[in-house]
Structures are given as structure tokens and as C-alpha cells.
């Protein structure tokens, strides 16, 4: 169960805003990382944790991208440390643990980044680094949701007797998008070919549209769900088009002597919108789990009373 609140008074708007700020900085960190790869600058600094044996290396050429990425990573690590401390003091064991996991993830991510520099083999190390980045991102996004007023106001439970249940559908969609990002990272760093990522694109496009449509049809009057459903739809549409354009740029870039501006913009945007699509799908899924009664509960209630369970909310299901 995703019941996180044990001491609501300690989960303040300030804590929520700090979690949001950490999420926003993580988006910037993802962008900095994508810029490193797209500018072919991942190996421009051959040492780690220092850069050219110094705290501040010569800021020329590709070194600027790699160094900016390291600075951003350091900043996000500090923000995550503060967030973990605040969450540990907020009175919720669940949030305290999740904050600690976020901290562990960001440190592990830094170590993986170092391994990428020292051990090369980008197909393995860079792909894992990119996947862990997405896991960390959805962790801090989840923390932003878990510290929100809506989440902690114990929203009334809704019924969703239709099939497939939104809880299941949204969870499958989020998982599929995560797998799709793994395939994308694998292609970008040379671990896989493009075909699995292309097939995955159609699968997640279908699932995300289905999920968004289900949210709109069944829970269009629930603001929290509707808003994230619309965002998921917007992100997946944008991402699909960006994917086509980015692949065209990749094909052109193979022939080029150096990364072109078009290639850098399209590939970085594709990585960023991919992360935002995953975040939106995770928020839809978590919100669905928070707002919708479990099927098993409904079935059990039906079995006992002989009639379907009714929503205790004022915002009832339309399905």
C-alpha cells in the first residue's frame, strides 16, 4: 500500500517545494548528461573524481560539457542529501526510507559515472548509468508527489470496476516506458541495435494513449488524474515525433566529422522528453493507486454484500 502519512503536520509545503526543486534540478542534470553524450565529450576528461588532476580543469572544447555534468551531479547530490535529511525528520518512515534510497541512488550514480570514465566500455557502463539516472529521477519525482498536499489529504477512494483497471493499465504503461528507455539508452550507447527501440516506441505509444484515454473517459472529473493523463499524452506524442527526427539526425551524424547542432538538439530533447514521459506515467500510476480502490477490495465487498461496492467519494467514477 502506498500509504505514506504517519505525521501529516511534518510534511510541509516547504518540503514538497524542496522535493520539486530537486526534481527540476535532476531534469537539468539529465540534460547535462545528454549533452555530454551528444557532443561526444564523455571521454574528454580521462580521470575521475578529479578532472585533469585538478578541481577545475581547462574549460575548453568537450571538457566544458563533461565538467558541467559533474558540477550538476554534485549539486543534485547535495540537494538529495538535504532532502533525505528533511524526509528522515518528517515523521514518515516510508518517506525517510525513500529519501535514503534516493541518496544511495545518487551516490551510486556518481560512482557509475566514474566507472564510465575509468573503465570505458560505454555499451555497459554508460547504458547502466543512463538507466540509473531514470530510476533516480522517478524516485525524486515520486517523492515530490508523496509530499504533495493532494497525496497527504487522503483523497477519497474511487471505484474502477471496468476492465482493464486503470491501476493495472497505468502500472504496465509505466513499466513499458521504463523498458523502452532502457532500449533507447542501449541503442544510444551501442549495447543494442535500433530495432527493439523502434518496436518499443509503437508499444509505449499505444499503451500511453490507452492509459491517457482511460483516465479521461473514466476519471475525467478527477483533476489530479486528468492533469497527469493529459501530460502523459502530450509527452508521448512529442516523444514519438522527436524519436523519428532524432533517428534521422543519428543516421546523418554517422557520416559527419563532428556532432552537428541539429543532432545535438534533437537527441538531447529526445532524452529529456523520454524522462518526462516516464515521470508522467509513474505519477499517473501512483495517483491511480492512491485514488482508486483496489479491485480485490471491490470484489471482496461484492462477495460479502452481494452488491458492488460504491465509491465513498464525491468524485465518483463515470465508468
Amino acid at each position, binding site marked *: 500500500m502506498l500509504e505514506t502519512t504517519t505525521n501529516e503536520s511534518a510534511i510541509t509545503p516547504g518540503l514538497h517545494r524542496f522535493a520539486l526543486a530537486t526534481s527540476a534540478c535532476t531534469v537539468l542534470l539529465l540534460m547535462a548528461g545528454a549533452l555530454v553524450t551528444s*557532443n*561526444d*565529450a*564523455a*571521454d*574528454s*576528461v*580521462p*580521470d575521475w573524481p578529479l578532472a*585533469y588532476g585538478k578541481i577545475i*580543469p*581547462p574549460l*575548453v*572544447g*568537450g*571538457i566544458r560539457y563533461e565538467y558541467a555534468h559533474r558540477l550538476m551531479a554534485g549539486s543534485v547530490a547535495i540537494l538529495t542529501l538535504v532532502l533525505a535529511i528533511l524526509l528522515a525528520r518528517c515523521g514518515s*518512515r516510508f518517506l*525517510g*526510507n525513500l529519501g*535514503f*534510497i534516493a541518496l*544511495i541512488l545518487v*551516490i*551510486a550514480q556518481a*560512482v557509475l559515472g*566514474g*566507472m564510465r570514465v*575509468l*573503465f*570505458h*566500455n560505454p555499451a555497459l557502463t554508460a547504458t547502466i548509468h543512463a538507466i540509473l539516472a531514470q530510476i533516480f529521477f522517478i524516485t525524486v519525482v515520486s517523492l515530490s508527489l508523496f509530499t504533495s498536499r493532494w497525496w497527504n489529504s487522503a483523497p477519497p477512494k474511487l471505484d474502477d470496476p471496468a476492465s482493464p483497471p486503470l491501476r493495472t493499465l497505468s502500472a504496465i504503461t509505466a513499466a513499458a516506458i521504463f523498458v523502452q528507455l532502457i532500449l533507447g539508452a542501449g541503442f544510444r550507447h*551501442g549495447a543494442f541495435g535500433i530495432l527493439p527501440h523502434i518496436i518499443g516506441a509503437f508499444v509505449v505509444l499505444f499503451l500511453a494513449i490507452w492509459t491517457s484515454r482511460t483516465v479521461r473517459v473514466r476519471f475525467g472529473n478527477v483533476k489530479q488524474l486528468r492533469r497527469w493523463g493529459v501530460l502523459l499524452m502530450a509527452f508521448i506524442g512529442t516523444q514519438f515525433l522527436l524519436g523519428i527526427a532524432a533517428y534521422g539526425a543519428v543516421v546523418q551524424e*554517422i*557520416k*559527419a*566529422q*563532428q*556532432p552537428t547542432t541539429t543532432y545535438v538538439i534533437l537527441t538531447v530533447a529526445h532524452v529529456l522528453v523520454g524522462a518526462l514521459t516516464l515521470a508522467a506515467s509513474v505519477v499517473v500510476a501512483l495517483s491511480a493507486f492512491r485514488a482508486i480502490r483496489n479491485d480485490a477490495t471491490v470484489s471482496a465487498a461484492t462477495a460479502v454484500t452481494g452488491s458492488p461496492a460504491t465509491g465513498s467519494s464525491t468524485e465518483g467514477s463515470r465508468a
Partner: protein
Amino acid sequence: MSNRCFHLALTAILALAISGCGNKENTTTEQPATPAAPAGKTVDATTTGSVAGKVTLDGKAAPEKPINMSAEPYCQKANSGPVVPPTVVTDDKGDLGNVVIFVKDGLGDYVFDTPKDSVPLEQKGCMYSPHIIAVMAGQTFEVKNDDQTTHNIHPMPKDNREWNKSQAPGTSPIDDSFARPELAIPVKCNVHPWMKSYIFVFKNPYYAITAKDGSFELKNLPPGTYTIEAWQEKYGTQDQTVTIGPKESKTVQFKFNAAAPAAPPAD
């Protein structure tokens, strides 16, 4: 699991991850794959011949876009005008330079000494010079930085040890070698992503890189039938078979088609 146990478990996992991540020693030199006392026949210098020839390009190569060095002001200043990637080097007559010619097959179990002299690879005006070098397995190559800016030198072999080293202006040259034969090892500078070069590593001394006039010569070949391969960065490879007798000299010509570039490498 209690809260404390949970935190302890996660901390232990992290500690294990960090302990597994030591700094890889980049300066170690691999042991040559070939044994110190090779068991094989040596070339009889009194019977050797040669293969000479020319490589030409049929048609006109598509013009390359000039390199954009705006990311590094020094590099722009170091070059008097726009720099074009030396992917296809031709003269007015269509002779093709920067083509690697080598004996691909037919040498049997001959063994050869590794040359003692070092092959230079310079970084000048934020470009590699020469664009392609060839060495024997175990032979040293020397990377110099003649620029007033920092470079990193990053060879990416498949069969040899990958390394990546920085080289600040005015620092001493980097000497290294590759233990195993390998064709077309890409070398990159990630600080200046347009800087690309190739290192060829052979197990015999029968290789040449064509001059701008497309000419080459493979000297001191023992009598035999050989497959000679020509490798061009954009147009791929061509093979020819040639038989030379004792003290015989043969000529072979390679002609690449400008309209048929090879597929780009998968990496």
C-alpha cells in the same frame, strides 16, 4: 526489517559498489601476444622482391564540409583557413593518398623482428598528423602535442587494450604500443570531437600508406603468392592476388569508385 537494518543493508551495498571501483592503471603496457623466441622461418634477404603500385579514384569525391572549430578559439586561430577532414586525399590526376596497403594473406609462418624506431603521431592545429599511422605489433608510437591547448588521446581498439590519456600543452610525448594485430583502430580526441585518426597494427612489416600521388611499395617480400589489400577510410577495401618469384618486382593498381562509398562502421 527494522528501519536501522534497512539503512545498514543499503550502506553495505554502496560500500561494496565503491570498493569494486578502483582507478584502472592506464599506463601498463600489454605483453606482446607473440612469444619472445618465435618459432618460424626468417626471410632470406637474397631472394626477396617487391610489389609497387598506385591507388587512384575513379570519379570525383564528394566535397567534405569544412570542420567547425568554433568550440575552441585556439584551434580556429591555429589554422589559416577552413580545414577539411582528410578522409579522401586526392591530387588533380585522381591519385588517392592515405590508403593503407598491406599483405593480408600468404606469408605463412615467417617471423619478423619488431622495429625499434617509434612512429610519430602529432597533434597540430587541432588535427592529427598524419591522419593514419601503421606500426607492427609491439612497436612504439609516440603521440606529441604541438598545440597550445589540451587534448585527450583515446584509441578505441577491439582486440587490444583501450586507453584514454590527457596531454596538456608542453608536456612530454606519450609512448605506447599495441600487442595484437588490428586494423583501423579509431583514435579520437573527445575535447575536439572532429579530431580523428587511425592506427593500423600488423604482424609483419609489409604495409605502406600511399602518398598524395597514390604510390606505394612493399619491399623485401619473400617469393610467394599474396593477397594484397587496400583500405580506404571512405571507400572500404579491395583485394588483389599477386605472385612474385625470387628477386622479382610486380606492379598492382587499385582503383576505388568515388560513387560507391563503403557503409559506415557500426560503431
